[in-house]
């Protein structure tokens, strides 16, 4: 049993390495374009809602904590708190997605969806609402939003998959399938959930916080 559990963890880690490579490509694109268009990236970033971003960071960190606690309660064989922690994790994950949806809608009403993806709402923000720092152009701001939506979008897709996996865990833990002897799925899905949290730990400062110190100058 011990060997099986270790093999499962190892397999999950190998999958997570491929995930790191996958997100790594987008982080690379972000770094390159930010190097080319620093002023535009700072201007575009300043338009993001820092409060919603920070609240979402806390929500996700809290959900990582409850996930870790779910693993703990499984390991010590306490079924009721285990189910409770899994449900809390799911609720927090859905909360995160809800807040993200509010932010996306805000970008939609401000016409910041890049390209012509949505008919009637092509990229074209009101110049009074988006303060362009010196040296920034709208075309470059649009590039920031391509990257913003690609990265946060892929992150949200991972959250949705995570919510599905948590639902499976809740159903099976209600059936008392996991105990100190067998709990590979709880641990492995926990690893996935923490990974998605880590991606956000990097996305938050990189997308939301890069231009705030330039605002009053």
């Amino acid at each position, binding site marked *: 049993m011990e060997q099986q559990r270790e093999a499962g963890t190892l397999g999950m880690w190998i999958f997570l*390495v491929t995930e790191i490579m996958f997100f790594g490509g987008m982080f*690379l694109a972000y770094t390159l374009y930010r190097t080319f268009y620093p002023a535009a990236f700072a201007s575009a970033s300043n338009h993001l809602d*820092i409060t919603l971003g920070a609240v979402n960071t*806390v929500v996700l960190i809290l959900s990582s904590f409850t996930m870790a606690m779910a693993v703990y309660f499984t390991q010590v064989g306490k079924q009721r708190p285990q189910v409770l922690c899994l449900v809390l994790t799911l609720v927090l994950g859905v909360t995160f997605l809800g807040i993200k949806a509010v932010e996306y809608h805000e970008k939609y009403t401000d016409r910041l969806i890049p390209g012509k993806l949505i008919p009637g709402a092509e990229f074209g923000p009101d110049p009074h609402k988006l303060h362009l720092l010196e040296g920034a152009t709208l075309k470059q701001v649009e590039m920031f939003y391509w990257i913003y939506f690609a990265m946060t979008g892929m992150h949200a897709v991972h959250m949705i998959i995570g919510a599905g996996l948590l639902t499976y865990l809740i159903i099976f833990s209600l059936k008392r399938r996991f105990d100190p002897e067998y709990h590979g799925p709880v641990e492995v899905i*926990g690893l996935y959930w*923490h990974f998605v949290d880590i991606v956000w730990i990097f996305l938050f*400062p990189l997308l939301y916080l890069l231009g705030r110190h330039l605002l009053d100058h």
Partner: protein
Amino acid sequence: MSEHIVSVRVYATIFLVLLVGTALTVWAAFLDFPYGLNTIIAMTIAVTKATFVVLYFMHVRYSARLVWVIVGSALLWMAILFAFTFADYLTRNKLSIGF
């Protein structure tokens, strides 16, 4: 190797560290540091937070050596990805032959 159960106290401590890190990074973002230090500070905090998550929430600190090797390999390949790409892009205008 028998399974190591991380205590509630450790989990709670890490959770608090992550909250403090989040508050710190938001606070630091509004201060204007010289020499582009803002990005370096933000990334240092993010890497620290991620390290705590990996070591404790993801149990890597108590995991087999092989897990360490796999996590390390991910970091190595990321370093190669960034180093080689930037070695190209950042040196393009230094050549006179043109692209």
